[in-house]
């Protein structure tokens, strides 16, 4: 019945959705933000440990959400560890483009880790599901809010 949903729910997504990595509130962290998608009830929190030079030493998340939002958060935590703040911002921009725009509309976000983008490719299926884009981007918006020292973000007012 759902053959054509395999693009949206690739095995990697189902796996991360079921067994999210870096899940749970860590003992120590120095930045955090909560993200909320009031439309579907997804709520997550992202916990960052930033080094003095702005390198992301550690990333965790918790909360509940659909398979897409959980997988996206889980993948994000894997990818961001060890990245600089600037690299994280660039990935955010490139990932956001991937989820929302045709390839010829993508803009330049500076140096982007191509390996990381390859891994994130599994989420590009949301392009065909406008209602699900926010699920894929919630964790990233929340991470960015944490980087910027904001406590909360919501998909309803962050111009997602």
């Amino acid at each position: 019945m759902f053959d054509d949903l395999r693009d949206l729910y690739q095995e990697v997504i189902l796996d991360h959705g079921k067994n999210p990595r870096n899940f749970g509130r860590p003992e120590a962290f120095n930045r955090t933000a909560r993200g909320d998608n009031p439309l579907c009830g997804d709520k997550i929190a992202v916990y960052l440990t930033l080094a003095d030079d702005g390198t992301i030493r550690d990333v965790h998340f918790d909360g509940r959400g659909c398979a897409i939002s959980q997988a996206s958060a889980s993948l994000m935590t894997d990818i961001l560890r060890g990245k600089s703040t600037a690299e994280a911002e660039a990935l955010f921009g490139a990932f956001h483009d991937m989820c929302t725009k045709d390839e010829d509309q993508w803009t330049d976000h500076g140096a982007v880790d191509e390996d990381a983008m390859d891994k994130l490719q599994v989420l590009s299926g949301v392009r065909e599901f406008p209602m699900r884009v926010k699920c894929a981007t919630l964790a990233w918006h929340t991470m960015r809010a944490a980087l910027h020292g904001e406590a909360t973000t919501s998909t309803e007012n962050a111009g997602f």
Partner: protein
Amino acid sequence: MTDTATASPISAADGSNAPYDVARVREDFPILTRLVHERPGRPGKPLVYLDNAASAQKPRAVIEAMTRFLEQDYANVHRGVHFLSQRSTDLYEGTRDKVARFLNAPARETIVFTRNATEAFNLVAQTWGRANLKAGDAVLISEMEHHANIVPWQLLRDQTGIQLKVAPILDDGSLDMDAFAGLLTPEVKLVAVTHGSNVLGTINPVKDIARLAHAKGITVLFDGSQAAVHGPVDVQAIDADFYVMTGHKLYGPTGIGVLYGRKALLDAMPPYQGGGDMISTVSFARTTYREAPYRFEAGTPPIIEGIGLGAAIDYVTALGMDAIQAHEQRLLAYASERLQEIEGLRIIGTAPRKAAILSFTIDGIHPHDIGTLLDRGGVAVRVGRHCAEPLMDRFGVGATARASFGLYNTEAEADALVEAVTACKAFFG
């Protein structure tokens, strides 16, 4: 699978014992024959529309009444001396009579047209509420309210210092009537609760609620947004002071809702919005307002929508609200039983009296994913918080999937739902 709905006789509005012929009813709704998710080389799926609690589809009678009105009779109402204005006014005001009969209201003047249910709550809060409630007074709502019956009171609370009290519900989704009675303390001046829950399906004992409240001199407002589409309503029998409805869930158009108010209450209420149509005389020094209900209907009203609502009421009345209720109750029993066979599926809301609304969760699968998968199977349900976030918290769920049935749904569609849910479980295995 046999469709028992077509087999068992129930009395229709015309008093005959004609069976409820759901196949024929479906022919009245053009949209029900469309396919969804068609792609080149792949046939679409038949639409299984189970999102009626969000909004119902429209019968041809409604669509045609609005078109005919626009082609033949349209003009502004209440203003002109010309032929079409008079005709338009008569037709639009005719809907007020139909709504009054539909709710068994004692007089047409007790029917106020609004934009939707939401506006009706805001109207009562800002007119009756502002005139009658003062700091320290309380409005008692329940844990199962739609945001439309929560937020207007919070706005009023911020403006006037009233309190908002919340009557709890039981685990099956019924209102806790003992707790409710205990909450009717002297500072409570208004009880505003839903007649039927859009999430749980619960039909509340509004007659008892009104009796208990009135015994203490408390005014009651009922939210009939859901209840009024699933069965007959008699505002006099239940002794409502205010009763709220919304047109688009009653197979009518969007953009029109109804506030029923007891005449003495409406007559004593200050206006809502200011503008044309609601005034008697205007000078820059002083303006006098028209009588109810017109005092609450400023500006050009939803005329075309009013015509559509009138046609929708004619339509459901001809089928018979009792017959619709009986049909939906059979569907509810059937669908509940079948869904419960699915392992890991939990139905939220199992009150003894409920409308054909089934909220559920499935272990290990988020409602949002359920929604996307069901949709691919052609089954339209709603997923999320259903504008009832406090209720989601009460049941410890972030969201639910909700299948809500209407007068045109069939047991075959309940089967399609069950099949899609089963496939969804296999998919996430």
